[in-house]
């Protein structure tokens, strides 16, 4: 098969078509949508989702799901913010280390509980979603990290960098590239796909399922922690009751749109990036089109369901196959 034909058969092509169509339609209705300014806004809107989506993608590929990332994001943002507030003399990277490591630790706990007790990750992470949110209220004493406690250099990371593209955008796409390298060329990366596509066969092939699964959850937590710092940089405050609430659903929407199958084993970084960009464009397009922000969640929910049906249809060999075999 020649490369161009292969490109068109790929799942990613479908998402790309959707993205292009969406941008085209919105630009036709409202020409000022098609501008570099919009691109800038979209690019600023996606890093938060993109970083966490890379973690969630790996979790879904391993045939699990992580609902706790919103709370992990909040926890890490609060933890890093408290370091910034209480120890302004420390360099910026200490805050980053605290955020990412605390996220990794919480993710590690998720992975440990899921694998040691062989429990469904959805229920476990529903529990830790609540548990971590409670912990972050206790840690922060229910107090917000105010804008003047967030160090100036961190805020500037969301605005600029030596090459004019904001640091958070560079970091986010850097994380995506690193994830692609990891999943494509490292042995563990390939093992994640193997575990997700056939959890019974994976251990028979000598894959140590438990440590790999724990690693996946830990990475998801660490990336959610990094997203917490991006949140602090971009919004300039961290509130225990607001930061990261419902974030997991946005991320799952982006990942599922990106063609990652919830049945495990299928998913690519490119698809996820496109899914995140599509979601970011929807987010930015709504106010430009004059649609009330109240529609956002309904649209996300609808998109998830449509993506699920499309995923199902593709795997069943088209709509006919889906309906014909619906008899079980």
């Amino acid at each position, binding site marked *: 098969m020649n490369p161009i034909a292969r490109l068109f058969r790929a799942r990613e092509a479908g998402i790309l078509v959707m993205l292009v169509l969406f941008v085209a339609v919105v630009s036709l209705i409202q020409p000022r949508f098609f501008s570099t300014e919009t691109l800038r806004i979209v690019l600023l809107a996606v890093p938060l989702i993109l970083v966490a989506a890379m973690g969630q993608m790996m979790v879904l590929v391993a045939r699990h799901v992580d609902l706790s990332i919103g709370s992990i994001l909040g926890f890490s943002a609060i933890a890093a913010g408290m370091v910034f507030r209480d120890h302004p003399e420390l360099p910026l990277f200490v805050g980053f280390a605290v955020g990412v490591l605390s996220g990794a630790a919480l993710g590690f706990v998720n992975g440990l509980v899921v694998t040691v007790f062989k429990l*469904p990750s959805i229920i476990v992470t529903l529990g830790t979603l609540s548990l971590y949110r409670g912990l972050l209220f206790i840690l922060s004493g229910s107090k917000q990290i105010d804008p003047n406690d967030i160090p100036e250099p961190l805020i500037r990371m969301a605005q600029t960098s030596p090459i004019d593209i904001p640091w958070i955008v560079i970091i986010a796409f850097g994380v995506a590239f690193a994830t692609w390298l990891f999943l494509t060329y490292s042995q563990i990366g390939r093992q994640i796909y193997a575990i997700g596509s056939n959890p019974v066969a994976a251990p028979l092939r000598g894959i140590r399922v438990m440590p790999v699964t724990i690693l996946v959850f830990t990475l998801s937590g660490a990336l959610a922690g990094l997203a917490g710092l991006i949140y602090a940089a971009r919004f300039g405050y961290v509130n225990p009751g607001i930061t990261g609430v419902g974030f997991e659903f946005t991320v799952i929407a982006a990942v599922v749109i990106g063609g990652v199958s919830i049945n495990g084993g299928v998913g690519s970084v490119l698809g996820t990036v496109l899914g995140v960009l599509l979601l970011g464009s929807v987010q930015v397009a709504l106010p430009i089109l004059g649609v009330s922000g109240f529609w956002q*969640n309904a649209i996300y*929910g609808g998109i998830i369901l449509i993506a699920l049906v499309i995923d199902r249809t593709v795997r069943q060999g088209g709509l006919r196959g889906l309906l014909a075999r619906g008899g079980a």
Partner: protein
Amino acid sequence: MNSIEKSPMPATTPRVIVREAAAPRPRWQVWLIRPEVVTLLLLVIAAIVATRLSPFFADLGFILESSTYYIEFAIVALVLTIVIISGEIDLSPAAQMALSACLFGTAFKAGAPIPVAMAVSLLSGLIMGAFNGVLVTVLRLPSIIVTIGTLILYRGLAQVLAGDKSISGFPSWFVGIDYRMVGIVPVPVLIFIAASILLGLFLGITIYGRQIYQIGTSEIAAIHAGLRVRRIKMGLFIASGLVSSIAGLMVASRLGSVRYDLATGGELTMVLIVMLGGTYIFGGRGSILGTFLAAWLLVIIATGMTVANIAINAQLTVMGLLLIVSIIATNAIYARSQR
């Protein structure tokens, strides 16, 4: 995820190994080592600790009164128990409560009389449940992720409908269901008890009830046995939608107003009640009795924490921890009693 359990027969043992049947477990073990007993024990311990902490707890009236906040979730949890026993899950009831309550409020604001608005709300519950059911049984998508999608969709639609304002001004006969008493029992508690008995009988002694256990234990076997698996599951999702809209109306009556964020986070509370009651997360085992006991356990724990001045936000920690501990415990018990 169910396909994980189908481990292949080892190819290296061609001859059949005849095993002596294990001795039947003593009767007392069968009766005592089961999750409902653990729930009951925890309930007794929680009650004793709570009365030690505060004399309020010795008063049954106080417990009944403070239960009205959780009882709506407990009512939905009864149906959720049956859904989980059948091997599926529904994470969208809290969002269904919000949307049906907002529809009720919107219809009322548009000038519909209360009974009509209530009918609209109940109908929406049926439709939302049926929509979940179609996605799961006709398109055969996993319920776990479908109901996450519909959770966001339904709550989003409630937001579209009601914006960020609350709708109130319902007539006084509709408001305050939790203040209506029969003796010392508030009406919502009475509804919960009645629903528990009805659903307990349905699950325990009707043919449909037993079929639900069979579906949850092995869906393939159930299909081969000629059970109408898809129809039964469809019915369960519709029932879940209907009971959610009833619960939504009860919240509307209790608060006297509706908002799109009504019952936010309720999915955690409902799953927590079901899991505390010892229902097996992979389906096939569990009981209404367990869920009934677990609802009271949760009421005592939550009220106890409030009486002990633990902030509602910090209580999230305990709830999350309880959920995880309860599934670990239930799994361990079922692993022991595996035949």
